[in-house]
């Protein structure tokens, strides 16, 4: 599937190369750089590029490109999915997957890639197995490694690979047995000029942190499982029981993982918990005016927190002179993004942002395009779809674990057209 992998940064350097079959010279990346130059933004580089003898499949994450090279037909999505799995693994190991974190950990990165693929085909991608093979770096281990001259390669042999539940390592032990479940829902919405909802849907997921000894077998039931109509599961979930009984039965992986994600589509109505009243007038030469008001709407009595309003302004906007009744605003003259950090919206007077904008006279003929407004917010203790965990039972182990569940609603891709 993969012949080679090149990790590049946005300034055009090859940070790392790894070959699973015969070596392919790094000049192959020039094709990629050409495509990168043509693209208007780093995200716009086509994910699959065809060159005379090779095909380049790339993903972009945090200023770093992962470019996989293949010579033969291969399912592109499989390569992409794998590369994202690599990114996720790096994130787990080094907290972030960036240019510098890779450069700081060449040896571990190289070893990880070596374990993840065999002859270019995925071998071990479950993080539980990988962590058994190669210990993630941490501060204390770094120091002790310096002293003792050890690396992070585990001394023990990876027995997890042999298990029939490959996602869980064997012999897990904790003094405090606890499991936490975060039900997170993101609202994706497009609101039109008039304030009516063009499109809205909910993207939800349950992230878990299980620190349970032994081989616990968990069963989770919901108050209203019918909401979960369109779901995808972690491989540990027994699909048959979900089909028949609408409950989640699983032996959890150790540590953090995403148990399931679900999608409540645009057919059902989604409550939009906030509104943005806006009047943005941008005129060439004469400048413009901005008047934004945000406030809660149908928020079920919960408070909107961490509200951030972002307006990517057109290129011709030079500066903004605004005053915010609450929170802070900033305007980045290079990226032309106006950011208003509103914070918590309390009941009472809705926060406003008013003022004038100076627009460059020379920029192009005609009126200036209207920007769209992106909004971010958070509502604690609420799953906007109404999904509710009913109970969680554990079988197979004797101890009593601590169980916690938390609900959170966030703005996903929440956009307001002006």
């Amino acid at each position: 599937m993969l012949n080679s992998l090149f990790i590049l940064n946005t300034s055009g350097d090859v940070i790392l190369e790894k070959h699973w079959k015969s070596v392919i010279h790094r000049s192959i990346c020039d094709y990629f750089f050409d495509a990168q130059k043509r693209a208007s933004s780093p995200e716009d580089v086509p994910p699959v590029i065809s060159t005379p003898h090779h095909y380049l499949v790339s993903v972009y994450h945090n200023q770093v490109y992962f470019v996989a090279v293949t010579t033969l037909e291969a399912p592109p999505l499989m390569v992409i999915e794998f590369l994202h799995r690599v990114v996720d693994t790096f994130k787990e190991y080094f907290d972030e997957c960036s240019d510098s974190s890779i450069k700081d950990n060449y040896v571990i990165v190289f070893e990880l890639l070596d374990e993840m693929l065999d002859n270019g085909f995925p071998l071990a991608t479950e993080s539980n197995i990988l962590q058994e093979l190669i210990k993630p770096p941490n501060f204390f281990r770094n120091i002790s490694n310096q002293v003792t001259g050890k690396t992070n390669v585990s001394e023990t042999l990876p027995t997890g690979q042999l298990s029939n539940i490959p996602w869980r390592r064997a012999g897990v032990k904790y003094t405090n047995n606890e499991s936490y479940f975060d039900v997170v829902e993101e609202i994706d919405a497009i609101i039109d000029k008039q304030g009516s909802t063009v499109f809205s849907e909910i993207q939800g997921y349950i992230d878990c942190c299980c620190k349970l000894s032994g081989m616990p077998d968990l069963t989770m039931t919901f108050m209203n499982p019918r909401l979960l109509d369109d779901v995808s599961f972690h491989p540990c979930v027994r699909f048959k029981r979900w089909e028949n009984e609408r409950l989640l039965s699983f032996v959890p992986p150790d540590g953090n993982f995403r148990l399931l994600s679900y999608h409540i589509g645009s057919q059902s109505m989604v409550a939009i918990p906030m509104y943005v009243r806006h009047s943005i007038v941008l005129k060439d030469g004469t400048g413009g005016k901005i008047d934004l008001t945000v406030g809660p709407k149908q928020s079920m009595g919960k408070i909107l927190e961490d509200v951030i309003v972002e307006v990517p302004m057109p290129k011709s906007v030079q500066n903004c002179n605004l005053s915010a009744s609450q929170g802070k605003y900033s305007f980045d003259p290079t990226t032309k993004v106006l950011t208003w950090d509103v914070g918590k919206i309390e009941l009472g007077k809705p926060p406003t942002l008013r003022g004038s904008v100076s627009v460059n006279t020379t920029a192009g003929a005609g009126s200036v395009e209207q920007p769209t407004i992106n909004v971010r917010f958070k509502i604690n203790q609420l799953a906007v779809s109404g999904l509710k965990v009913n109970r969680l039972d554990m079988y197979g182990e004797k101890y009593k674990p601590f169980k916690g569940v938390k609900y959170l609603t966030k703005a996903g891709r929440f956009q307001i057209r002006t």
Partner: protein
Amino acid sequence: MAYADGVTSPEVEIADVGASGFLADAKTRHADLKAMLDSSKDNLKMEAMKRIINMVAKGKDVSDLFPAVVKNVAAKNLELKKLVYVYLVRYAEEQQDLALLSISTFQRGLKDPNQLIRASALRVLSSIRVAMIAPIMMLAIKESVRDMSPYVRKVAAHAIPKLYALDPDQKGELVDAIDFLLADKTTLVIGSAVYAFEEICPERIDLIHKHYRKLCQVMADVDEWGQVMIINLMTRYARTQFTDPNLGEMDSEKEETFFSSDEESDDEGDSDDSAKKRKAQQKKKKEKESKPKPYLMDPDLRMLLKNTKPLLQSRNSSVVLAVAQLYYHLAPRNEISVIAKALVRLLRGHREVQSVVLMNIATISAKKRNMFEPFLKSFFIRSSDPTHIKLLKLEVLTNLATQTNIQMILREFQTYVYTHDKELTVAAIEAIGRCAVNIKEVTDVCLSGLVALMASKNEIVVAQSVVVIKRLLQIQPSAHKDIIMSMTKLIDTVKVPGARASIVWLIGEYCQTVPLIAPDVLRKMAKTFVQEEDVVKLQILNMAVKLLLTNREQSLPLVQYVFQLAKYDQSYDLRDRARFLRNLVMPQQENRLTQFAAKMFLTPKPAPVLESTFKDRDQFQLGTLSHYLNQRCAGYSDLPHFPEVAPDGKVRDVVGFGIPVPNEKSSAPQAASAASTKHSSKKSKKAETFYSDDESEGEKESEEASSGSESSSEEEGSEESEEGSEESDDEEEEESSAESSEEDEDDDEEEEESSEEEPPKKPPPKSATSKKERKVEPANKPSLDLLLDLDFGAPSGDGGSSGQPPLSTGPTLLPSAAGSVSNAPKAPTLSKSYEVIHTAPAQFVPKRSSELLNKVGGQGLSVDYRFTRSPSLFSNKMCAIELRFENHSAIPFESIKLVDKKLPVGVSVSGFDESVALAPSKSVSVMLGVDFADTTQDAVLSVEVSQSDESGPRRLTLTIQAPVGEQLEPVLLSQQQFKAEQSKLSGLNETSGKFKSSIAIDDVKAIVAKVYDLANVIQVEGIDSADKICFSGRTLSNKALLLITFSKTGEELKLAVNCEKMVIGSMLFKHIKQSLAV
């Protein structure tokens, strides 16, 4: 890693580029590393190796250290060894001779008692690309495929393609090894075995026959990457082995072959017999050709489809896409739609995933529009999307446009026209043009919209709309004289060459429509000819010729002038064209073609067809690299076409894997089902022999797999928990565990039900508390703010820490709390089988809404309601209704709230608990859940509205009535279930009658659409008779099953509705009859 920085110091970087001087430098530079590697201390060696790997990762050449490194291959230190291996694999190809030094270490490793050491030795040995050791590798592979440990076998499977790449001559032996591995029973190995198969011998489909059923069944348990491989293999396999399920013509002959050969399996080997039978079948076939029968799906194909479907739920997007392409290429038309939802879900993923998925959706939607129509809104463009995603979404939206949704789509397109993104602007205008052509109803609207765009200040918008209008006008030019005139005016202002060329062409083409203007335009263009771009010049020439032919006297001097200019133009092309045209229309000597000039230039031209550029993409298999790039990639092989006649299905018969059990093949003829039950009873015994594997690792899995792939994962748990007491005889143990798990399931089911139906205020049923579950009672509940206790079933748990459940602002939200529910009579005779029936999503959501209150009656407020057919958020007994309030007055409504409900016994209403405000000319929607208790009683709601003027609050009465068709939910039934249920619901529970239909009774689609429009039911798949159409659903409140059957009797249509609730049944019958009868 301080050393790393030293290595990348600028001097070295420069030296790297330099040539000869560097080599000497390298020697000295690596001298210290060599010394470290030669030392006896492990930590020094480690340090050296780390630095070396650092350089390898950066792509620096450190091959000169090879001898020093290879010495350490036998190091005791495991970490060191691993790093040496990494180095070795990278450089062995370049240092073949030296690499041989390490081989003996690996050979020793292959004999190690520890399976992991064996595996790693094999892995490195096979990764060293040294041709000389190919025979050693071959030996190692041969041995390892028979290894005890499945992990070693997995690594061996991976080693096979490596050896093949090194030495293709070994193919024969390698194929034998693959054949052996394909028969492996552990899921760990199978995925890799299929990978090796696909890499080396994808053409040897014959090897798959005997593993086909096993592969289908274990698919769910294979790792994700293996799943993708297996699904792709299965797609190809099925294309060669089964007939096209969408072929309207019958192919029952294939079915026959399959089953008759099955009977044969008792006296196998009797070739004479089978030959005779085949002859007999051929005869039969000839007889049948005169009388085609409906297609019957091969049970093996059915099994494949059934086993891959759950994988649509995978978290791995490539698995989902692989299943989607399998369905697209193999499933019967009416089953394909299941993939739509899963694909749309993937759109939330990373941008690269989106790109690939959208590319595939675009291809599918070009052919099968209705699949994605319900998800139209998911393709709306956000300004934050990358450009190529935007363009793909636009493509999909255009493909999906139909008469009904075109308004919405056009409104979206309009917003796209005014975005920052110039490419999107251009594409959006193009898309409007395509919609205008494809949907006749909106052609005029689009055209006037585009004309309005021509007045835009943005040059790109103007230019592109001119180009698009040009194409539109070709469809009906005469009617749009004024548009041509207004475009003519633009010629002075528009600068973009493409647009200018379009205008000139248009005037030339329709110069007879605008006879007064055309010569004048030519005059203007002749003036600026020299400054124009080539495209425009060419069009000017064209226009000149056309004018000359229609209006010779006015235009001749101008035309001559233009030709003269063109004669001395810089462009070859233009000069050639001018010479050619001149000779045609103004010949120096007699030219026979001249008289035909008018015919050549003034023939009416067919309007260009504007269609999806993705139309031809489906020549490639979906989800492949070739499909994405729309070019034939190296190593791509076309998906074979379905065979006319399916090959013998008998090849797939293996001991232990009979044909699928009867309920799996809903479409199999009944005659055959008897035979297969016999077979399946045999199967259960044989399955054990098949899996009698003594290996410790294999054992668990084999036990699981014996009950079918999916249920295996289910049993895993119970086995796990009983592992401690696992001493008894295998068989007994398995039985008991199966039993206990069954009991468990029953318990759970009851529990689930009870928790849904009992009010939460009451203590939960004993069964729930008495079960062996652990609860944590948090000591300080109020302070536990975010972490809620999970045991909501406990008496106080529900209202506990968080106060109230999230959505609710009153008790009405909880399904059970609606007091009226208990008034509702319970369906007394619900049979147990109902519990396992699954609801399906609505097949069709009618867009129409009905008026509850018009704006006159509501004094400026109008109320519409609509049935969304989605599961109600409030209770599963409730019907989801969307109420839409619209303010037509100039005064805002300060609040609209529900104050009173007058409900008949049994009916209950939830939702709409908060008051809403409504500004003038705005509208707002609220969701309401109504449990009509399976009656046609009205739910009367009082709404209090207060306007901001002084008039004070008013009360309005809303009467909501639900047609019976909306009080249903679709449920999935197999053909057998349907028949069984229908026979139970005969007699008084059946309402039937015949009538003449207004729709052609052969038009199944139209009938289905009609029924979907009237009632929220789902068509039953796999009904074996072509004359029958069946639907299933159940009532929302009492969950009473409702079955609809259409059958043809001569010219008339016979309709039967079976429902336990006779009133519902007969009313629905009436409704359907009314709308269908003449």
